[in-house]
């Protein structure tokens, strides 16, 4: 029985949707749930490489929709976690190969055989985005503490509300605590005040994310990384656990704790 169908979207490209999808899905699977993630970015697929499953693709999302294979045949089992699956996007087609109602039908089929379905949305506000949000129970918007990303997140949040799919939940990705401390970067409080939605995660900028993507192994599988812990916390919050936040009391509390975690701060 599926608990939740979660779509991860952002408006702006390059803010970390695919990385977030791969890591949250992996974290949920590590906790023992049966998780299916779907790459809805038809024509620009990437969730396969981030998960390190690019060599195992036989069928894709469009093959399922057009009836060339059964759903099960397009589900690639993860090489590390037997309860984690990927349905890859087609690379040689475009977004119009799938409709929002196709997505609803396909995900309804998955609801019976998984605990979680995570959908990685393409950037933009067009067909691909509509496809990705149509079957969602919960929509997570990823943004960066940067003007254009926040503006696009606001636009997307408005569209999600207009579709009566809200309220969206927010993940602030690639925060640089040192820059925030110098007042050279928007703080989590600034972004929350502007966007006025529920925050479910703050992920600090972490070079280890690039290393893990290079290897095709999500960072949540590595014990020590900052970003990995942040993604594990997001998964736990989606599971309904009350995980304390590193931020949002006072800025002192926030920086104190963040820098303590990174090991750069004092006591």
């Amino acid at each position, binding site marked *: 029985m599926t608990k939740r169908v979660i779509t991860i979207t952002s408006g702006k490209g390059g803010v970390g949707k695919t990385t977030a999808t791969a890591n949250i899905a992996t974290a949920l699977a590590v906790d023992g749930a049966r998780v299916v993630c779907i790459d809805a970015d038809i024509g620009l697929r990437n969730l396969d490489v981030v998960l390190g499953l690019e060599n195992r693709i036989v069928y894709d999302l469009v093959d399922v929709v057009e009836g060339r294979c059964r759903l099960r045949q397009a589900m690639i089992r993860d090489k590390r976690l037997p309860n984690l699956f990927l349905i890859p996007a087609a690379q040689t087609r475009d977004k119009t190969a799938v409709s929002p109602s196709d997505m609803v039908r396909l995900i309804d089929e998955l609801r019976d055989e998984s605990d979680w379905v995570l959908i990685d949305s393409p950037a933009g506000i067009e067909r691909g985005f509509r496809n990705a949000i149509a079957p969602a129970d919960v929509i997570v918007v990823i943004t960066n503490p940067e*003007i254009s990303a926040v503006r696009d997140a606001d636009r997307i949040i*408005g569209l999600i509300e207009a579709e009566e799919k809200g309220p969206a939940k927010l993940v602030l990705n690639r925060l640089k605590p040192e820059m925030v401390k110098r*007042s*050279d970067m*928007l703080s989590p409080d*600034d972004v929350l005040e*502007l966007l006025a*939605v529920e925050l479910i995660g703050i992920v600090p900028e972490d070079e280890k994310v690039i290393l893990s993507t290079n290897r095709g192994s999500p960072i949540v599988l590595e014990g020590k990384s900052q970003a990995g812990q942040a993604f594990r916390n997001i998964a736990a919050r989606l599971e309904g656990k009350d995980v304390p936040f590193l931020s949002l009391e006072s800025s002192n509390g926030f920086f104190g704790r963040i820098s303590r975690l990174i090991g750069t701060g004092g006591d």
Partner: protein
Amino acid sequence: MSTFLDRILGRDKSSAQQAKDRLKLVLIHDRIDMNPGTMETLKDELIDVISRHVEIDPAAVRIEMNQDGRQQRLIADIPLNPSGRRRSRKHV
């Protein structure tokens, strides 16, 4: 980059504050899909309608967009001139 003293004295806004202030304005217009020109027209028409019934000072009218969570509010501050006498302003 600004010095600490500059910021304390308000001479220079931090770059984060600049980003926030600019975003605030951009988001207001993105959300209501109304450009500053339309806003001016709205203000003129409001003044026109209200002036038909009570005496107001058009120059004192303030109309602005305000954010309340994800809700946008149009706030109109329209001081009324005291009835029965002309608005008088003392000169210093």
